[in-house]
């Protein structure tokens, strides 16, 4: 079925991915080592993330909870992992301000991880007493059933701040419009390109695509993670060069696309 190259069964058509993956790994390792030595990596301003502090502060002033939605997908999607990392940063702030944090989850594995992450953040801030396991809980796996469960929380608990991070599908607008109706400050970040337009229209700030992945680095400023951000930027520069050189070569008949 698949063209074999030798007895080991190495698939010859998959060389490009192998090279690309190893190159990215190399970039990451190199930049982590470099940022360890001097940790002053510049990161451009991302307004949605600058606003996180203020948004949690506002909920504190109003005496209302903060709502965090970690997306619709399970832990095997890296977008969810990025969301959970941001959750850790948000939880550290709600612990500091002594503000209630609600995290209803759709996916049971995400529920588990979110509980661990929130508890760890509360412990690290010295406030393990404030952590309420019941506020980080599984609702239901049904897509739209989950969406109206969240809608119900927004209408009745009236959170002053809503965070939407991770991967989303059609239900995104049900949640974001309801949050808009209740007058909450809303910050979203997703790598689901089909849902970005709705978050942009209904939220105060929206992180677009890769900005979601930069989010936890931006908030934590951990040198180890800053290095990987730099590596991603280098990879983008390589992609741009590949786009330009490849186009030049194909357009001028120097080289034919395989």
């Amino acid at each position, binding site marked *: 079925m698949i063209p074999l190259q030798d007895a080991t069964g190495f698939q010859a058509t998959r060389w490009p991915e192998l090279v690309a993956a190893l190159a990215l790994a190399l970039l990451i390792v190199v930049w982590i080592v470099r940022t360890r030595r001097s940790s002053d990596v510049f990161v451009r301003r991302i307004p949605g993330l600058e606003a996180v502090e203020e948004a949690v502060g506002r909920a504190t002033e109003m005496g209302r909870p903060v709502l965090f939605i970690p997306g619709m997908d399970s*832990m095997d999607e890296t977008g969810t992992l990025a969301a959970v990392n941001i959750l850790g940063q948000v939880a550290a702030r709600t612990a500091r301000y002594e503000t209630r944090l609600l995290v209803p989850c759709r996916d049971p594995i995400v529920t588990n991880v979110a509980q661990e992450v929130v508890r760890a953040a509360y412990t690290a801030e010295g406030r393990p007493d404030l952590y309420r396991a019941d506020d980080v809980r599984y609702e239901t796996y049904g897509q739209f059933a989950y969406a109206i469960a969240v809608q119900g929380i927004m209408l009745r608990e009236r959170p002053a701040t809503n965070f939407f991070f991770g991967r989303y599908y059609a239900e995104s607008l049900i949640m974001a419009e309801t949050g808009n109706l209740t007058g909450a400050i809303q910050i979203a970040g997703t790598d689901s390109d089909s849902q970005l337009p709705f978050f942009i229209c209904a939220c105060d700030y929206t992180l677009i695509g890769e900005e979601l992945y930069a989010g936890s680095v931006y908030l934590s400023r951990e040198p180890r993670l800053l290095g990987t951000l730099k590596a991603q930027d280098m990879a*983008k520069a390589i992609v741009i060069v590949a786009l330009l050189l490849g*186009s030049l070569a194909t357009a001028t008949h120097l080289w034919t696309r395989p």
Partner: protein
Amino acid sequence: MSTDLGVWVAAFFTLAIFSSLYRDNPVYRFAESLLVGVSAGYYLVQYAYSALYKKLWIPVVQDQDWGLLFGGLLGLLVLGRLHRRTEWLARFAIAFYVAAWAGYLIPSAMKAQVLEQIAGTWLSPAGSVPLGAAVNEVLLLVGVISILVYFYFSREHVGALGVASRLGITFLMLGFGASFGYTIMGRITLLIGRFQFLFDRWLGIGPSSGGV
């Protein structure tokens, strides 16, 4: 009017959900609470049946497929979460779930989301496509590059970088507006579907019976 009890139940819940558009009310809240319970129960049964019964019990008991028992062991570790002292055991299951797929994602995301997209953006050989198509190809290339510049994090977006990044936002906004406009069509179709159900199947006043 329909004489089918199921249609009446379905119509009741349809209207209950629509009532939330006016405002939160007890009927809506009843429907919402019921749906959360019913769907949680539905998925529990589905996964218990397809994952634990069909993927674990049947293959192990009938076909002696012992390899799956290890999955069963990982599954048991999950239950460690029920007690504080055994909680950490569940980390094996979580680390497995996250890392196993990560290993597969590295090359597959590289291929589908990066390499193939680069190849798809390269220009066609000069003279092989009509002028209009060639202009579109160049615009596409410019758009993709400027958006990548917008995502560049470790430099201040000033000067040439700033110009390119603003061009990137322009492409993004046009694209978002287009997807938004396009999606409205599908959403209205869903609403039409609910009205056709209410008028045709429940009240029986629509011009069609809603059959195939």
